[in-house]
């Protein structure tokens, strides 16, 4: 019987094929473009813009792959209670800004419109900063990859249970039922979130595991016409009294 960690690892390995293929293809095309440019006597015909774009792609997809690996590692460490990963007061709005900055380049190569919607002022929540950052980043990469050429929005807002943070897009197909089934299927099925993404959805499951470790279970949610996944955290009362 596979453990959750085994299943997550299988999903991760499946997902990592994509960025490595993207890097391999971009490298191959870069080499081809440079060889062609070198063969042309008139140096002004060298298509440096294309080469720059290809290097840009290699850069952002490598970063996305690294975030996924790091997120997996962190979720495994959190699950066995590694030292230094305790819950602490975290400024969720500043984490959202950092994540938005990180996702920006990836959104551009996928032709997505990335938006940040922080509705109001928020005090700290009880979470782990690295884990929250990794969860939102990996969720963001998954949404951008699934959305392609539409809007992806990072949303921070209040609800009756606390402070909700999540990622939303115009892609249909997400529901609590799908998520519930997918939690049972990942690692066994290649496309546990097949109505939402063609990939293994590793970023969603890594984010789910990380959020779960911080008592912030992911749920589907809506914001206007957008559907997304968000987790709700309890505000850190201790600090709000200071």
């Amino acid at each position, binding site marked *: 019987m596979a453990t959750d960690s085994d299943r997550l690892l299988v999903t991760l390995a499946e997902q990592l*094929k994509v960025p490595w293929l993207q890097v391999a293809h971009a490298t191959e095309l870069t080499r081809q473009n440079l060889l062609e440019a070198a063969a042309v006597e008139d140096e002004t015909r060298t298509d440096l813009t294309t080469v720059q774009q290809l290097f840009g792609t290699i850069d952002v997809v490598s970063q996305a792959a690294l975030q996924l690996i790091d997120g997996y590692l962190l979720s495994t460490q959190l699950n066995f209670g590694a030292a230094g990963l305790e819950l602490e007061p975290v400024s969720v709005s500043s984490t959202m800004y950092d994540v938005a900055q990180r996702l920006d380049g990836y959104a551009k190569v*996928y032709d997505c419109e990335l938006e940040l919607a922080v509705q109001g002022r928020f005090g700290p929540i009880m979470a782990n900063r690295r884990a929250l950052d990794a969860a939102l980043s990996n969720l963001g990469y998954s949404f951008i990859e699934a959305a392609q050429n539409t809007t992806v929005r990072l949303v921070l807002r209040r609800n009756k249970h606390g402070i909700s943070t999540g990622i939303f897009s115009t892609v249909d197909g997400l529901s609590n039922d799908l998520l519930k089934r997918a939690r049972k299927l990942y690692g066994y099925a290649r496309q546990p979130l097949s109505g939402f993404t063609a990939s293994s959805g590793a970023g969603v499951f890594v984010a789910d595991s990380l959020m779960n470790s911080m008592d912030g279970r992911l749920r589907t949610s809506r914001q206007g016409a957008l559907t997304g996944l968000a987790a709700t955290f309890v505000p850190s009362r201790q600090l709000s009294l200071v």
Partner: protein
Amino acid sequence: MAKRPPSILLIEPDRLLARGYVEALVQAGYDPQWSNDAQTAILAADKKTPKLVIVELQLAGHSGVEFLYEFRSYPEWQKVPVLVLSGVPREESGMPGELDLAGFLYKPQISLRKLVTTVGRILEPAHAR
């Protein structure tokens, strides 16, 4: 009059991977049309019958196999060669033999050059290097 480049319908869910395949195919003298799901691919084929279909089996919503059953159900598309280019290995794909594939490539094992060579072999067997 210049010969028109053979049109290829590429069905690939990932935008960045599609961009790489399209660029390699254009450089090789083909006219690829990209669709990211089965529904838009059927509409694209209806608009312009391709000389070759390249399809990933793992798509969001309807799978590549569902697309192929639909595609093959139309008499005018029954002879169009289909090349599967997938992240799923052939032995794990459960691909039915009746769908009559021209080839099956496993993405992690092929380069863009290999893809272009395979396409050339399917479309221009006499000239394939």
